[in-house]
């Protein structure tokens, strides 16, 4: 069976490295990007099965914007998206409230940093199972 592909986007290279290690160890193929722009390019070229996005990147809401842009690309309208959040994020929006508005934030779930490997893998499995 072919490995499932995960796109991870975060401007913190250390987080990116940790994520990549955890996911590779769990037998996933990892594509990583450091910005929204790079993330969208890699999304189109590598066609991942799931995407994990940080909220605060080049701008405080770059991750939110990226979810909406992903949904506009044909073939990714239903791509599972996990947001990486942090309680201290100064995004200017109430995250819980934003999650309930699926037009504004079309993400499927979120995980709070720091990343707990088991929690992350379980969440990914759940979303991928639902997709199939």
């Amino acid at each position, binding site marked *: 069976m072919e490995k499932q592909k995960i796109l991870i986007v975060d401007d913190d290279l*250390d987080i990116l*490295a940790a994520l990549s290690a*955890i996911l590779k160890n769990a037998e996933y193929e990892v594509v990583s990007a450091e910005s929204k722009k790079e993330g969208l390019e890699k999304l189109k070229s590598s066609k991942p099965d799931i995407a994990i996005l940080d909220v605060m990147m080049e701008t405080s809401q770059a991750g939110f914007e990226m979810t909406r842009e992903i949904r506009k690309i044909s073939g990714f309208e239903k791509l599972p998206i996990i947001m990486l959040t*942090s*309680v201290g994020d100064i995004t200017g929006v*109430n995250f819980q409230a934003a999650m309930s508005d699926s037009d504004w934030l079309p993400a499927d779930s979120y995980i709070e940093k720091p990343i*707990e*490997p*088991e929690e992350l893998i379980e969440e990914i499995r759940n979303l991928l199972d639902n997709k199939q």
Partner: protein
Amino acid sequence: MKELTNKNTELIQRVNWLMINRWYAVIGVIIVSVVAKFLIKIDISLINIMSATLLLFAENIIGLYYIKKIISEKDKTKQYHRLKRNINCQISFDLIVLTILIHYLGGIESPFLLAFFFHIPGASILLSKRETVIQTSLAVLLISMLTFFEFYDILPHHCFCIKKANVTIPDLYSDIYYVYKALGAFIISLYILIYISTSIGTRLRNQEDQYEEAILKLNKKDELKNEYVLRLTHDIKGHISAIQSSLSVVKTGVFAEIDPRNQEFINRAYRRTYALIKFIKDLLRLTKMRQGDDFERKTFSFKDMLYECVKEVESNAETKSIEIISKIDEKIDTITGDGFSLKEITSNMMLNAVKYTPVNGKISLEAYDYVDFIRIIISDSGIGVPEEDIPHIFEEFYRGSNVDKKKIEGTGVGLAIAKNVIKQHKGDIWVENIQTGGTKFIYDIPKI
């Protein structure tokens, strides 16, 4: 310069005070005149006095009607001018009624002329210096007119005296020397009085402005501090998160089995970064709360929330063989508030109870439905809170003096958050020691 909104609220408060005093005046005049007429047998015309009092009564009713209209005015500048006009009209009308009453109570001979000496300084709180002088001059004009109209018999004179057969009544009002002396003394005294009262008033008002300005400055500084803490903790948290995420990769042995000797130190580092993250999270929550946001209001089932809290704490309690006794009133239904925060603080307080209760102990969660609010009582059989700590226990970073800080981890922020959340809901939170040992944390939360 104070903001117009504040100024208006202040004026509205003061005009309400004026109108409340007017009700007292109405009652006072009625009682005094009845007593004077029937007990002291002073010869006064009750009907006339009552009619004048009725005018005061009507003034207050009309005043209330207009104030209500003014309060709903959106344009603050317009509201200010309308308030000012209303206040001036009320005071001028008071002076006219007072003059009518004085007329029926003896005119220039009346001892009740003194009434002007408390009405005008009282009213000057509501007026500018110029307006006070104008109102005082109106009072002087009214009394002078009254006196001379009585003197020249344009108006009848009402005597404020006890009529007895063999006592001649001195008609002072028609004695030109008395009229000049009395009127002169009245006018001079009144102007001196308002000069003194307005100077004191101005000074007090200036002081008040200074205090308000100081408070405003302090609040602004506090806001800056909150901003600063938010920025700082956010930046720190970014680094710690990266450290923690990297550590968790090593800790779980992703790439290779770890020597147990190394594992121990990785675990130690992991525990400390975990504690630090918890602290930063709490600090962020608290700071955000102090900024006034981070508070949402939704209707949710409070009972379900309590059951969820119990469930969340169960595993922690089990590891210490602690029994959780829950007594939740079945009547408890929905409330409106920030469900997320309320759940967080309630389960936090229960976790605290577990933390401070020795192995094999008991903790309990009780919930009672009162008509307007719900009371939550979380008790433990732990070490209790020393009396001297009770007033400080909800302060930020405060930890009980009897807590072994090396053994029992805590940030000292949890209860401060709880207090803030309860305060935002206009509820109440406090702590009590149980006689037989242990502590009760109690909070009341309004249903709406």
